[in-house]
């Protein structure tokens, strides 16, 4: 079990509105999953470098060429609300 208080804190960090049923459900389900994944702590990984990507590829660079692909109107075409070609949001402050 992960406490409902922790679930609410995490939901806020994740910017997710959860209802009361979801808080109770995730408290139970996430608790079980976290218990399961905690088996990793039994393994000694002293000195093992974390592997963050699957292959040892080097970071590649390319020239910073200007390409015309997404027109402004196309890029903002899916906006739920906009003003001209600008996104519109409720008050920030």
């Amino acid at each position, binding site marked *: 079990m992960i406490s409902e208080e922790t679930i609410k804190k995490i939901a806020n960090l994740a910017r*997710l509105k959860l209802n009361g049923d979801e808080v109770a459900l995730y408290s139970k389900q996430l608790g079980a999953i976290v218990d399961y994944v905690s088996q990793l*702590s039994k393994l000694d990984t002293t000195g093992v470098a974390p592997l963050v990507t699957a292959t040892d590829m080097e970071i590649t660079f390319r020239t910073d060429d200007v390409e015309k692909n997404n027109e402004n109107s196309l890029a903002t075409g899916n906006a739920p609300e906009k003003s001209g070609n600008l996104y519109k949001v409720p008050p920030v402050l």
Partner: protein
Amino acid sequence: MNFSELTIKSMADKVRRGEIKARALVEESLTRSKKSQPVLNAFITICENEALKSADRVDSLVSQKKDPGLLAGVPLAIKDLLLTKGIRTTAASKILDNFVAPYSSTVTNKLEAAGAVIVGKTNLDEFAMGASNENSAYGPVKNPWDLTRVPGGSSGGSAAVVAARITPGSIGTDTGGSIREPASFCGITGIKPTYGRVSRYGVVAFASSLDQVGPMTRTVEDSAIILEVISGKDRHDSTTAQIAVPPFSKNIFDSVKGLKIGLPKEYFVDGIDTEVRKAVENGIEILKSLGAQIVHISLPHTSYGIAVYYLIAPCEASSNLARYDGVRFGHRSKENKDILDLYCQSRGEGFGPEPKRRIMLGTYALSSGYYDAYYKKACQVRRLIRDDFVKAFQTCDVIAAPVATTPAFKLGEKSSDPLQMYLNDIFTLGPSLAGIPALSLNCGFTKNGLPVGLQLMASHFQEEKIINSAHALEKTINLENRQPHGF
């Protein structure tokens, strides 16, 4: 005329020689798509108008004596996780229900440039998170071999359309088994390429250190053709490898003489369904009879794969899915008194249960005080898992194993317990975490007529080894023409 018997290779050859019109192939595929939809629910969007236009373009190239490409006129279905310009792309999520892609994925562009015609966008688990296709906001896909069972996931729609012969091939994505498991459950071939082989530009991101795009087809040769078309360095995806793409389909051969096939003891444990084990062992016996040499190997960290994956993938997902904020695209809640409320409400309303669960899990594991114990630890064990494979490939060329512990399970059988569903992925997660190529090939059927997949894996960028081994086995086992009843 019934074209559904034809392979991709024969369809494209006939179109290029002018023996069949692309339009005829596409019209038939569209008819089958629409007819199957109430039964299988394999599509989220069928692109009739666009497909007919593309088909006409291919036919006009042929009539001008121009070569439309390796996939000339071939109808294909694309997982609705890949962006298709001007066509709705949902990731099977209500949060993207109204999203019309402003550009196309590199894979889609490459397929179309090779003459393929996209007939529809296939159903999947929401954001590719699942192993049964039951997590789709557009309802589950049914398995053509038994409509009471799941097709596997997350590329369930892509697997079902190929098994039901609606299209001869499709595109799936695989993060932890999402091409191989549905390929196994639906009795087709599916390849997860090496990480870095295929561009992810324009593919809705789930877990970026794992996601790969790959082909799903009835025959191994057809998968090789599609893989050849979609592979290669892409300037729009810095994670694609600068490594030459072999002409997989031209180089294909069917001899396994002298090939060393490793059998990892950790993949042949108690708990595997007896009929699955029998079919897989039969496939291996055939490879042996064709001249392959069996080597017994060990991948000692296999059992940690699930724990590692279900930390790394949710951590990456929680970060990738932060972009769905109700501002630039996707669902926006009507309840939004301020910007914070807009984010929380839009995401709370738009995401289904599984993405929410994984966002929560990932945010938890990455939160202050837990990062080292969970994410960092998982990345350390990931290295041990990859090193197991590197060591194993010093003694063998290819590794053979089951894809899943069971054949396709019943709809609803595992959907109430997420952890039970996760445990299902045990045999597909290792190759994903290691970034190596792996495929699923149908190697037999259970008494109830359910297909069983054999998994073949090779070292990084050695796709040819698994393609050729699978091709050899396929020719001997001869199952690719068996067809689900009613399709």
